């Protein structure tokens, strides 16, 4: 495990992407050249790519280890945890130093020690953990606890791991991305073979073996944040682009290989079983296709055409289906899902991602037309749509269409270069024309008052950075009014602002309940969010999506913050369901 601990320290002390990349490449290359390290390297990749094994020791046991091992009162350990914000790090700092034993490889740690733990009884597990920690070199303690909690948080993205592995293996990034699909989701034991498969040369048989059920890496859009006036100069005429709605559903990839179909989420989770409603659609498709699109809830009229969006339901409806493993007939009747297709990645058993967007689109349209025709012949509709193209002569005209998005319950537009290929992950670059741009609406916002604060974790550990915001129940003229909480947010502040807020929270604390402090209402923030819906669960009666701090309104007195009425005014006018 020494190599992993050293890599972790190197990554942790590197602030530039370049330095992190170099650290990954050095470590993977060393492993590549030494087959005895492959098994451990397989685990390293797993953890770096965000893999989390089923927790081998419950937090309760780790906590007991911290309390008993340090000999401190439990409340004091809690104070420490609250100050550090990460359980693994707190334990590494609290436990007394032992006497380091021999070096144990990461592979042995995982396969022989940690993974078998759950089958033992509690006392035996505790006893082993206690002994192992005593024999761990101090600089391996943090990483050891992270193996158990699974929260590596070392600031390496999956894409960086893919890039480094691609370089070490000498294969293309897109190929490596595909090899990595599902790798970090596995809850199985890994071995030397897994690392070998990652770094292997591309073999002829690979496509067959590897691609049997795996999706392509998703191509992600980046935000267009510049004014409309700049668009022509940067992007050229709108005719060079395909514009589509940005739907408020979940991104998914539908695969059909031979007779089997699969639905993958953007998080690379296999979710087919949760959406049996798509079965007829999958059956109507030809074999060996991969379609990228959006999963939504839709209650269409019976004769809807392939590009009709009639009956499209808001995200709140889809939310009721997310995370359900077992789906009843009733659910499928009340909340039927549909797949809005917007790209074709594989066609007739061929990877067509390198073909231009408009060519892929034409193929997608003809494919869905055929499927629809076939279904019609049997007198049925299909839970399939093609994302309609939005055509406008000028960027300004397109912007006007975009502005209608909110009333329609959509997030804005997506712009795709007509000649662009389907890439891997998120491409960065301000003026590139081979990217997908998401051109979102400006978020809705209200001025809200901070009333509770909680310490954050990870990068925000130890600092009061997670806030609950409230609006007034009535306006200033009312005889009585109170602050009604409606949203929690933690992003949007700079590190310096966060430190400043932390000090203010400590000075204005009224009461402390566990990790939460109520504060005297003194600070107003402009709080932005992407959507708003009625909610019975919230005291305010509304739930907002993706709330975040847009601006610290130091200029605004608390009394002038917005009211619940102003917040409710943002609710979409009730739409035809």
């Amino acid at each position, binding site marked *: 495990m020494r190599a992993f601990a050293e890599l972790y320290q190197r990554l942790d002390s590197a602030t530039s992407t370049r330095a992190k990349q170099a650290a990954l490449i050095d470590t993977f290359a060393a492993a590549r050249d030494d087959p005895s390290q492959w098994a451990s390297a397989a685990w390293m990749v797993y953890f770096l790519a965000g893999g989390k094994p089923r927790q081998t020791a419950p937090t309760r046991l780790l906590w007991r280890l911290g309390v008993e091992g340090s000999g401190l009162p439990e*409340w004091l350990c809690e104070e420490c945890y609250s100050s550090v914000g*990460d359980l693994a790090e707190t334990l590494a700092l609290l436990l007394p130093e032992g006497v380091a034993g021999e070096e144990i490889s990461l592979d042995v740690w995982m396969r022989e020690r940690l993974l078998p733990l759950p089958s033992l009884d509690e006392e035996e597990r505790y006893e082993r953990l206690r002994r192992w920690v005593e024999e761990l070199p101090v600089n391996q303690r943090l990483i050891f606890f992270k193996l158990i909690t699974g929260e590596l948080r070392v600031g390496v993205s999956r894409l960086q791991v893919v890039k480094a592995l691609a370089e070490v293996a000498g294969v293309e990034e897109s190929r490596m991305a595909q090899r990595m699909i599902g790798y970090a989701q596995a809850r199985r034991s890994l071995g030397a073979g897994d690392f070998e498969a990652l770094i292997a040369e591309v073999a002829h048989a690979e496509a067959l073996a590897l691609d049997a059920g795996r999706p392509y890496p998703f191509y992600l859009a980046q935000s267009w944040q510049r004014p409309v006036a700049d668009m022509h100069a940067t992007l050229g005429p709108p005719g060079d682009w395909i514009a589509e709605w940005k739907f408020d559903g979940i991104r998914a990839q539908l695969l059909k290989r031979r007779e089997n179909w699969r639905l993958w989420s953007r998080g690379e989770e296999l979710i087919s079983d949760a959406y049996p409603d798509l079965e007829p659609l999958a059956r109507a498709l030809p074999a060996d296709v991969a379609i990228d699109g959006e999963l939504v809830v839709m209650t269409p009229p019976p004769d809807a055409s392939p590009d009709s969006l009639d009956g499209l339901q808001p995200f709140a409806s889809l939310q009721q289906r997310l995370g359900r493993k077992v789906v009843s007939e009733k659910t499928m009747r009340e909340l039927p899902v549909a797949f809005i297709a917007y790209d074709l990645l594989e066609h007739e058993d061929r990877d067509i991602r390198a073909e231009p967007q408009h060519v892929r689109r034409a193929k997608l349209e003809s494919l869905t037309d055929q499927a629809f025709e076939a279904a019609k012949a049997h007198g049925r509709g299909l839970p399939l749509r093609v994302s309609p193209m939005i055509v406008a002569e000028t960027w300004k005209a397109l912007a006007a269409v975009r502005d209608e998005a909110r009333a329609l319950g959509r997030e804005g537009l997506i712009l795709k270069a007509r000649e662009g290929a389907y890439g891997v992950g998120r491409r960065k670059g301000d003026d590139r024309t081979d990217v997908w741009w998401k051109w979102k609406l400006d978020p809705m916002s209200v001025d809200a008052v901070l009333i509770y604060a909680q310490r954050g974790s990870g990068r*925000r550990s130890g600092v009061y950075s997670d806030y609950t915001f409230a609006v007034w129940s009535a306006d200033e003229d009312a005889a009585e009014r109170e602050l009604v909480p409606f949203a929690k947010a933690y992003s949007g502040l700079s590190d310096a602002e966060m430190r400043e807020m932390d000090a203010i929270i*400590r000075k204005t604390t009224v009461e402390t309940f566990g990790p939460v402090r109520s504060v005297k209402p003194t600070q107003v923030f402009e709080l932005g969010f992407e959507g708003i819906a009625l909610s019975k669960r919230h005291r305010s009666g509304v739930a907002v999506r993706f709330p975040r701090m847009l601006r610290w309104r130091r200029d605004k007195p608390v009394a002038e913050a917005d009211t619940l009425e102003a917040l409710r005014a943002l609710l979409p006018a009730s739409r035809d369901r």
Partner: protein
Amino acid sequence: MKAPAAFLGLLSSGSMDLIVATDRGLYSAAGDFHIDPWRPVARAVITHGHSDHARFGSAVYVCHRDTAPILRKRLGEVAIETAAYGEILTRDGVELSLHPAGHVLGSAQVRVAHRGEVWVASGDYKLENDGVSAAFEPQRCHAFITESTFGLPIYRWRPQAEIMASIDAWWRENAAAGRASVLYAYALGKAQRVLAHVDAAIGPIVCHGAIEGFNAIARAAGVALPPTRMAGEIGTKAEFGRALILAQPSAAASPWLKRFGDYSDALASGWMQVRGNRRRRSLDRGFVLSDHADWPGLLAAIEATGAERIFATHGSVGPLTRYLREQGLDAQALATAYGEEDEAAEGGPPPESSA
């Protein structure tokens, strides 16, 4: 001067208390002087020269003789009475003496004795001998007023030699790559401590002007420091590439740094013990080096005083006093305005408002 009428009322009620907290600072009624007052008073006993402890406006300042030039640098020409460590100043039957606190050059604990009762106010202190300030000497007393900046058990320092070796290693690695090493360290204390122990053979050492002033004071007091230069005295970029550059933390991201070209940056502070504190500052490295006592240090110092009553100021007041009470000591909080500068505020959480 009479004792201010408005006591804060946060301390125990006994009329025997030799030192109490007032809205101006810690006050000894029997000796009629304040300790590190944050508002002007007639007679201010100063534990050390950090600006949150040595403030402007008092009529007379009393401090260790090594602190006097620091006060003059900060406050200009003010009336100062100095004392050596252990020297007893007697007034109206009250004995006042200063004892090494090991925090920074000239830092002192304040011992007050009256009619057989002994109280000690620690100021800021650490137990490890840093080779620059006189090493901490515990004083037996009835009541001990202790700082608690790092009063949580996650704070346990590694030996100074080990930290200095890791600073050297970082500097050496940067120098080999032709990259300047910018180390942020508090201008008074931490900077001289680093200077006194790094391996000056690795390359030239450049100090920010704010630090150089304190270097001069330390050298005049007999502290051996390696030669240091100002940024303007270095001729070439290549020379910067081998240099260790010491700057106060507030210089981070300032235009002053531009001249050094490519550099690696690091902060020497006890707060660097927690990863989040370093990552929030986007620093390459954090060296866990503090001039304050760590958790075992606080407990050892408190134990060594033999005091029955403990008052904790600035830092983790709540956890420390609660822990001490559970150990059977009479421990409570004392509200002060310390810790607003110095390490207590450089990257770590600010002190609890009260606890």
